[in-house]
């Protein structure tokens, strides 16, 4: 017990010492965990302060030259300490919890942002990141431009009947995984003025049988090709049953860059929503 007390005294003392040290460093050294977070930091113009990212941060291109700390949920305390960060910024799901505890006891500042995928959480993420980075003006501007795009997307939709839209992960011929409620893809469909028929049935991504796919008869199919450049025709070759749906018959099948959805919605979501709204409501575009 005594050894424990001594140890915790040491840890606390170190914590103060390191906190004091951290203030002396003039340029912040940011570690960004979560592709959405990284993207916002760049959009706010603070990308040059990032010293390391998690393994799924992939946008913008500059990120790819930074050291990688591994998967967001499997961060290593030592790896992070070795980068001597002044702050670690990430989403709620970064972990594991023991790593977070070790980092806290080592005096690393940790900022945790909410993960939810809806318009309000984009606003919250952008504004709170701007505050952390001391770029509040830039944050307001960024959010303004994103919310302007959302308004534009709503305008395009107008009073027209909402099309049903499914989001599929192209799984190379196997049963496709379809986005349900509480997914970034679902929020994106809603922001662009569509209806996701599976949102009322399940949350997260679930495999959907071909029969169910026929029955849902989506007007539009969005798909993530995992960066492979799959064309709509290739998608139909993999899932021939798509040919029998309204989306397949009219050829309204749209590829979405996986980075747009991986880390939750972000600064580029506004533009994407406008683009999709135009595809959902062709008459008005």
């Amino acid at each position: 017990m005594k050894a424990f007390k001594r140890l915790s005294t040491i840890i606390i003392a170190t914590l103060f010492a390191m906190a004091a040290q951290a203030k002396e460093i003039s340029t912040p050294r940011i570690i960004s965990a979560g592709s959405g977070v990284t993207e916002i930091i760049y959009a706010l113009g603070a990308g040059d302060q990032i010293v390391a990212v998690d393994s799924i941060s992939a946008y913008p291109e500059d990120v790819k030259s930074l050291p990688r700390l591994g998967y967001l949920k499997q961060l290593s305390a030592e790896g992070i300490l070795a980068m001597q960060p002044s702050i670690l910024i990430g989403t709620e799901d970064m972990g594991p919890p023991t790593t977070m505890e070790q980092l806290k006891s080592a005096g690393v500042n940790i900022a945790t942002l909410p993960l939810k995928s809806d318009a309000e959480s984009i606003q919250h993420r952008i504004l709170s990141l701007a505050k952390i980075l001391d770029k509040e003006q830039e944050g307001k501007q960024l959010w303004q431009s994103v919310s302007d795009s959302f308004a534009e997307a709503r305008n395009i939709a107008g009073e027209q009947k909402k099309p049903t839209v499914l989001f599929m992960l192209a799984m190379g011929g196997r049963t496709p995984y379809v986005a349900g409620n509480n997914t970034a893809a679902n929020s994106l469909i809603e922001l662009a003025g569509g209806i996701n028929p599976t949102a009322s049935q399940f949350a997260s991504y679930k495999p959907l049988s071909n029969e169910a796919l026929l029955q849902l008869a989506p007007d539009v199919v969005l798909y993530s090709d995992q960066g492979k450049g799959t064309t709509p025709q290739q998608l139909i070759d993999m899932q021939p049953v798509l040919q029998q749906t309204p989306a397949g018959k009219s050829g309204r099948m749209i590829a979405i860059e996986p980075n747009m959805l991986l880390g939750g919605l972000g600064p580029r979501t506004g533009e994407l929503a406008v683009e999709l709204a135009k595809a959902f409501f062709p008459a008005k575009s």
Partner: protein
Amino acid sequence: MNRSRKSTTLLVGLGILLPLTMIFSVGTGPISIPSGDIISLLLERLGLIHSDIPEHTRLIVESIRLPRTLLGVLVGSSLAIGGAAMQGLFRNPLADPSIIGVASGAALGAAIAIVLGGVLLSDFPVLIQNYSVSLLAFAGSCLTTFVVYKMGTTSNGTSVATMLLAGVAITALAGAGLGILTYISDDSTLRNLTFWQMGSIAGATWNSVLICLSLLAPVVLLLCRYGSILNAMLLGESEARHLGINVQSAKLTLIVLTALVVGVSVSVAGIIGFVGLVVPHLIRMMVGPDHKILLPASAMLGGTLLLLADMVARVIVSPAELPIGIVTALMGAPFFISLLWQQRKRIA
């Protein structure tokens, strides 16, 4: 060199190798720390000298590397001695704790905690929620061991063959349970599940080290005393009985002790394969099958090898790190294949 001299040399050698590896392990990582610093830090903790090591180094050594190294030794030793005891008990060189379903039972328990924990345990105290994965993994390993043992035991004694078959069946059943849990879990729990199954000792804290030390160290020491009984049982159960050994109670004790070390190890570190299988084989190749040497030597070599694997895991993709189960499988599986290859030649 005769066999007993060889054995003594091996035990002494491993006894020196293990502490050296521990010091080396504390020094290795994304931030490298000279062994001199580590030794003076330890001496300072013992109140022998005063050193001026930077706080940053001190912190990494004391709150991250030292607990991790100790946990590695404990888990590695437990898995290896558990494997050695099972191979002796089942008189089967392929036996390791996973073969009678202990590991898959633990995995199922952990998966239940990870996937359903939020729903099932929300009314329990926070302390229980925090350790729910470990607790349920341990419960899973104990339950499977009990079921397998019960299935294998009749009034005529315990049939090892039945236990092995029961283990295969339970593994399949646990696999199905895992499949269902995988199917109903969402993305993020699915990933937690996957990573848990790859094993890791990165989450070591002084708390988990103390818990493991109090549970594992006594059991490992106790297991070391079963050398002569396991030697006698190698001759066959009835022969062992003629030598005056209470075979039935020895079997029960060995099974319970093995389940305990494996269950505790799996619950803190996830699934780390091949240590329990490969280490006893290595020792047997060096000094033969005498369990009096095999058990303690396996424990020491198991700890050493797991530390080495952990160092690889820590350094190879630094600043990120690999799950240790991947490293042990990468090192263990080719070794095991070469072992089988050699045996094949011997038979032919």
